[in-house]
């Protein structure tokens, strides 16, 4: 099986090498352009014209004589008083037999015309070189690591955002029709004003996205506070976010990184012997508000789950359709197994140190998806603590923590639901796509490279509001040809039924590509 898996990759590697060799051969061969100009040997202008002859490498000057002879000179100088050109080269007769080589003396009065020559770089070769480099990089990505290709559900951007930040990714866990789910994402980085918001929904992966709806939830922001979503999908008003006074991770202090939601993320490397290995990040908050509090965690997954998901698809190979069919029919327990696979790596579990009770769990958070950060609050009631010790337990290398904070939870907020008012698709205004998003019995199906602009309107404007995106649907990952080489139903079953052992088996493979996976992943984003 190992040999079978390696063969196509070797073939692909061979193709890349052949291409590189051809490019090298093509680029190195003499592919320059010859630029040639004729200059009349008129007195006064000759020196000027020769000085301004076309530049390039390996200049040659030919002096065509009235009698048909020609001097081919590699260097030359004009002696004005005697009207003589002296230089080095070869003299040919009219039959083009070389008659004299070396130092030449050319009487200008006998010259019929001068010919300058130079070789210039070919723009075609420059274009082909750029094309080759790009193509080889793509080949190298796909040959070296086919499971680092960009993927994961529809991505949402806010139009007009100067930084073009990825705001949300919809229903990342819904990899099959029966796993269709509703996803609530806080667009907490969106800066919007005025009565119109336009979201750009993109399919940037080799996937088919099936979107049932994409609604905007708008909640008024309380003075000095925010509105946050809980894991139960409820929206709660909060007070100001309080940063931890101390954060300690296995690698050392990380207070500065976690104190603000500034995009700086705390990450860690996986355990190269077991992908399920856990780590603990300890946080201290002081002072602590009383009443009902929320532990706010802003985080996204690393590419570990993407790797494992793609590996599972690769093991399923050509039988992926059978697995999906069984999943849809509810036989074989695949639904339960796939759902159980995520928790094996785990969410981010939070515990607080309670006097007399030790470490007490207050819940877990962490939404699937490696692209956009999610912000959720874990509610709990403060029993009267003035200083709070929090412990986050998470899988090594599986999470990227942007911000952890504490806040006082207020009342539940009933958000205003805005449905798209207009949709612009790849071919312009798309009433059919809009109808699909408004009718719960229909779906909008998108293909790789598709971009849809969803327009939302609120007469009162969006100033002072928190935005949330509620999307529902599922997506189908495309099988890659490179993955088929790794088809192994037994390993697929092992990954589903005995994930603990599989996570240990796959650990070295992931550890090898972990450092470079991020850049490869983002560079393989699919766009038209």
């Amino acid at each position, binding site marked *: 099986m190992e040999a079978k898996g390696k063969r196509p990759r070797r073939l692909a590697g061979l*193709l890349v090498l*052949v291409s590189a060799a*051809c490019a090298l051969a093509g680029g190195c*061969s*003499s592919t320059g352009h*010859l630029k040639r100009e*004729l200059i009349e040997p008129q007195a006064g202008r000759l020196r000027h014209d020769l000085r301004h002859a076309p530049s390039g490498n390996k200049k040659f000057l030919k002096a065509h004589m009235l009698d048909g002879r020609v001097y081919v000179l590699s260097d030359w100088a004009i002696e004005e008083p005697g009207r003589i050109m002296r230089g080095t080269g070869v003299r040919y007769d009219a039959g083009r037999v070389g008659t004299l080589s070396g130092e030449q003396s050319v009487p200008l009065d006998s010259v019929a015309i001068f010919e300058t*020559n130079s070789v210039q770089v070919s723009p075609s070769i420059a274009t082909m070189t750029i094309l080759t480099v790009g193509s080889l990089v793509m080949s190298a990505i796909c040959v070296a690591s086919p499971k680092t290709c960009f993927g994961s559900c529809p991505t949402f951007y806010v139009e007009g955002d100067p930084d073009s930040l990825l705001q949300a990714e919809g229903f990342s866990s819904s990899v099959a029709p029966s796993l269709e789910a509703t996803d609530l994402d806080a667009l907490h980085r969106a800066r919007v004003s005025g009565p119109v918001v336009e979201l750009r929904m993109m399919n940037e992966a*080799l996937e088919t996205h099936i979107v049932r709806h994409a609604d905007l939830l708008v909640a008024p922001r309380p003075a000095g506070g925010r509105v946050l979503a809980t894991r139960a999908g409820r929206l709660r008003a909060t007070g100001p976010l309080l940063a931890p006074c101390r954060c300690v991770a296995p690698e050392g202090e990380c207070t500065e990184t976690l104190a603000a939601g500034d995009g700086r993320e705390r990450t860690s490397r996986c355990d190269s012997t077991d992908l399920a290995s856990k780590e603990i990040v300890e946080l201290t908050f002081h002072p602590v508000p009383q009443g009902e509090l929320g532990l706010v965690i802003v985080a996204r997954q690393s590419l570990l789950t993407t790797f494992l998901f793609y590996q599972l698809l690769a093991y399923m190979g050509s039988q992926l359709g059978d697995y999906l069919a069984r999943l849809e029919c509810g036989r074989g327990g695949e639904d339960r197994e796939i759902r159980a696979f995520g928790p094996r790596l785990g969410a981010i579990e939070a515990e607080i140190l309670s006097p007399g009770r030790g470490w007490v769990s207050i819940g877990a958070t962490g939404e699937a998806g490696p692209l956009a950060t999610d912000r959720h609050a874990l509610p709990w009631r403060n029993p009267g603590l003035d200083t709070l010790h929090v412990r986050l337990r998470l899988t090594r290398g599986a999470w990227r923590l942007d911000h952890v904070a504490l806040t006082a939870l207020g009342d539940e907020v009933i958000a205003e639901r805005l449905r798209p008012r207009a949709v612009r698709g790849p071919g312009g205004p798309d009433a059919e796509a809009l109808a699909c998003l408004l009718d719960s019995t229909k779906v909008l199906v998108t293909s790789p490279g598709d971009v849809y602009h969803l327009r939302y309107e609120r007469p009162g404007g969006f100033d002072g509001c928190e935005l949330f995106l509620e999307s529902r649907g599922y997506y189908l990952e495309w099988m890659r040809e490179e993955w088929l080489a790794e088809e192994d139903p037994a390993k697929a079953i092992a990954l589903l039924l005995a994930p603990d052992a599989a996570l240990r088996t796959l650990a070295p493979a992931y550890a090898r590509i972990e450092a470079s996976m991020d850049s490869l992943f983002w560079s393989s984003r699919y766009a038209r």
Partner: protein
Amino acid sequence: MRAEYLSRQARIGLLIACACTGAAGCSRVSVPGGFLQAADEQQRDPYGAWIEVQPAAIDSAAARAHDRRAARAKGLPPVRGEFLAAGDSIFVLTADGLVGIDAATVLRADVVAFDSHSRAVAAWMAAGALSSLSHGVIGVVSIPGWLLIGGIAATAQYEAAAFHYPADAWGELRRFARFPQGLPPAVDRRALRIKPYVAPKPAVIKKL
């Protein structure tokens, strides 16, 4: 199903690559192997470039009207050889000797000034398209991209060395003649010989 789709794409890509490579090699003036060198060699070559002239038949008025079909119908063969000079007459040095053609009767002329290695660029394009098979589904985009850009590049590379009358005036074309100043009166026309060239021998693979 997916694999079958991909392999079909790959086969289509291969076919197009072969077709484009073939097209890059065809529809061009056929220059004898070894006659032209690359630009850096050709710039110091004392001989003229390769020319192919299509003279009109007796009816010079029709020729001026560029009625090529009429000229071809009369079966006039094109004159091919070393471009010697251009003036009132176009002088071509063929393997059989000097041929002078009244410039007014020339329907079409193609001058190839140097070996631009456009076939190498076409082969490069084909290799690039082939290597894009390793891109998987992205090859649906990258293979046509290679063929489109590579095809344009190969054509541009060829055209950089090619000049065509009547699109280009004789004043432009004469730069690549052996005698750009015109045929010198003192030259013994019967003594002139076409540029000696040796066609490269085809590679021989010895059986071990």
